[in-house]
């Protein structure tokens, strides 16, 4: 190990920590979900989309499914189902969703609410590197 080697090792550790720290900060300062879209589907067809940040806290929207109206509510960059005509209320019990890829699925009323993000990190490399 020469002095130059030690400088290299130190620099790599610092660089790794710096990038790691920067990513942590970025994630905390502006969560990726801010640009996310809330997509509401009935019977598999998209009926409404809202930018997640536009769903004001406490605001409620309704969407008509085969059984009746499902009501969902916005709140601080998240969304939840507040009432539904379905018998088991699984969708209501699902609670808040906010992250890209999360979904509330009400099978009886055929309503699906899911968050589609522009999260950059969700796609990993799919090729094996050699």
């Amino acid at each position, binding site marked *: *190990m*020469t*002095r*130059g*080697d030690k*400088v*290299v*090792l130190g620099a*790599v*550790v610092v*660089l*790794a*920590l710096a*990038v*790691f720290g920067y*990513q942590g900060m970025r994630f905390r300062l502006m969560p990726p979900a801010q640009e996310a879209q809330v997509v509401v589907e009935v019977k598999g067809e998209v009926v409404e989309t809202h930018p997640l940040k536009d769903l004001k806290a406490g605001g409620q929207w309704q969407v008509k499914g085969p059984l009746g109206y499902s009501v969902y509510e916005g709140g601080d960059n998240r969304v939840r189902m507040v009432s539904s005509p379905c018998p088991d209320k699984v969708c209501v019990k699902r609670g808040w969703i906010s992250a890209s890829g999360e979904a509330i699925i009400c099978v009886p009323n055929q309503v699906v609410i899911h968050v589609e993000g522009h*999260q*950059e*990190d*969700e*796609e*990993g*490399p799919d*090729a*094996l*590197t*050699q």
Partner: protein
Amino acid sequence: MEVKTRKLLHLSFLVAAGTALHIFEGMLPALSVLPGAKLGLANLVNLIALSFYGAGSAWWVVILRVFLGSLLGGTLLTTTFFLSSAGALGSMLVMIISYSGGRGPFSLMGVSVLGAVAHNLSQLLMATVLIQRLGIFFYLPYLLAFALPTGYFVGLTATYVGRYFPAKNGEWKKPVTKGVSSRALNT
């Protein structure tokens, strides 16, 4: 044996060994937690070529190794091939600059670690071009953390290999084996 023939023989051997290592590494199961992380065994022959025969020969070894390795590994002209080439060429460029004919401030370990880091960076850059998404750089810290020990040990191995390739009658350029005590090397 004539010096020129000897050199040709040694470089051919290095290309063959590098090709084998390249394919062997491709056969190792990918780390599911960290796709893209690898040992960098093929870099061993690059380091040996660089330290014994200099930059020009090292380029030949790395280019032929990637081509043959991809051809025999069945990845030629696939995404893997482009990632592989980008990594190998970027890494070689940085290693040649940092080694600078043995007069640089780094031993082969330092050169190897720098090469591993350059490999990761150029591979991520190529991946970004291929998938058109910058987010893949989020892997960088993890890859760098992996590159440190693997790069170091590959460099150490190259140093030891260099010791067991004897220089005779000035036909070889004796590699610079800085940073490893002569006692450790004599064992």
